[in-house]
């Protein structure tokens, strides 16, 4: 039997945007065991909740992650609103769903670019990020920020989008979608993309379910689970079906994200069509007392927020279970038995966001 060797992977690695360390035990070129270790970028954001006013804490919640920042702020606000029994205006709910879907498009296109970079398709990476730039421009025009938006607040939103701006954004979205179709076709049909992804890092439906996979990683294995279907915010009024693939390999996970971008464009159009009139903000009085689990669908999967208030202006406990954390055990399973050269691609297909995971 060939000798067993330990190869360290990360925390600094060209394919990793954020630091995670894997000890890869290999025999010849095959990975036989993986030991992950986290904890390089822990910032202690959850503890800040005991020192920040609960209205200001949303600014900290947004800074958990730079890519799904809006949905982190939304999860915190929804949790506090449920504890305080606040009825957010319908327009605020629709605008929140609009921005959340725009974040999903942004995140998926960013990830597709990174994936193209990981399997060595540099020009596809650049074209993906070129499209992403237009989405960031929409964010800047509507919220004022490109990464951290600061529009979500407890009780509604800080900013409204006028209906004529929404119509203009709809036209921009059509242009973005037309551009996106050209690169989506490459991801779907190109020989080199299929060659690097098909049959690599297979996770069966049974394994994905038992190991607690979430988001595109779970849906690529054939399990239709999407937290948006529980109907939080405006999602109860929007028509969509979770995107599911059967194969459970890297190609299937890529395809789930490729197809979810179209789904998000459709949801944004539905939001603009059904956008109700009215205010987007409300006056918030009192302090949160009680506890709530808030579950949302982030681009990477299900995120869970636990918020507990004791009737003071400081929240007593705030806990976030991020999708990447849930996807680490399936990742370890996927890496077992794979070729050493495929490790970067497989690690990337769970869309790891380590700064979310460690907070």
């Amino acid at each position, binding site marked *: 039997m060939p000798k067993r060797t330990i190869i360290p992977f990360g925390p600094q690695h060209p394919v990793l945007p954020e630091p995670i360390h894997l000890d890869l035990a290999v025999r010849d070129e095959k990975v036989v065991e993986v030991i992950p270790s986290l904890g390089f970028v822990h910032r202690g954001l959850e503890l800040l909740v005991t020192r920040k006013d609960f209205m200001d804490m949303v600014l*900290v919640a947004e800074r958990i992650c730079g890519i799904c920042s809006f949905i982190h702020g939304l999860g915190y606000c929804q949790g506090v609103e449920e504890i305080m029994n606040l009825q957010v205006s319908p327009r605020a709910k629709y605008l929140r769903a609009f921005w959340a879907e725009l974040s999903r498009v942004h995140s998926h296109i960013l990830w597709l670019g990174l994936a193209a970079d990981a399997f060595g*398709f540099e020009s596809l990476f650049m074209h993906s990020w070129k499209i992403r*730039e237009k989405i960031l421009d929409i964010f800047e*025009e509507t919220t*004022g920020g490109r990464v951290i938006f*600061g529009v979500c607040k407890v009780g509604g939103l800080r900013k409204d989008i006028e209906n004529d701006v929404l119509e203009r954004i709809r036209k921009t979205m059509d242009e973005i979608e037309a551009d996106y179709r*050209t690169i989506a*076709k490459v991801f779907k049909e190109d020989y*080199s993309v299929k060659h690097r992804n098909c049959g690599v890092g297979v996770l069966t439906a049974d394994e994905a379910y038992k190991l607690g996979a979430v988001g595109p990683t779970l849906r690529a294995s054939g399990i239709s689970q999407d937290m948006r279907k529980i109907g939080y915010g405006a999602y109860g009024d929007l028509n969509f079906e979770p995107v599911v693939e059967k194969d459970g390999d890297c190609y299937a996970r890529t395809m789930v994200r490729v197809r979810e971008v179209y789904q998000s464009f459709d949801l944004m159009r539905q939001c603009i069509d059904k956008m109700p009139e009215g205010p987007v903000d409300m006056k918030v009085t009192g302090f949160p007392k009680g506890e709530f689990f808030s579950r949302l669908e982030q681009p990477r999967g299900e995120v869970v927020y636990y918020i507990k208030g004791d009737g003071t202006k400081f929240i007593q406990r705030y806990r976030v279970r991020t999708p990447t954390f849930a996807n680490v055990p399936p990742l370890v399973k996927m890496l077992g038995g794979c070729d050493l050269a495929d490790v970067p691609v497989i690690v990337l297909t769970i869309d790891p966001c380590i700064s979310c995971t460690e907070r």
Partner: protein
Amino acid sequence: MPINPFVKMTATIIKSLFSPSACKMYPVEKPVFYANTRGHIAIQTDKCTLCTLCAKKCPTYAIMVDRNAKLWKIERTKCIMCLNCVYACPKKCLTNENQYSSPVTVKTQEVFNITPPAPAQVAEPCGQKETTT
């Protein structure tokens, strides 16, 4: 294996070859900001009443107000442009400007001299009005 494996990307690449650059030639070409773009906080010193609400609302303690010396100070590198101060200001003298603040090599405070508005004419209290007899 298909005859030409690169054909899927060819159309996109040819289109890119004959289209203008996607990158902006910054700083030769100035960036376009939107009205909403969070650039930096500006203050109208003649409207400020030194009420200190902005400093109290600032989550990063970037704003400091010295009421005795009549100074309003902001540390730009600490400011996260959350606009809490802009929303909190009762006199609406703080505004969001859509141009980013200049890059710096040393962290410094920007200090503004405040000239509080002249107090409103107070009516003379009852009973002290001069009367002619």
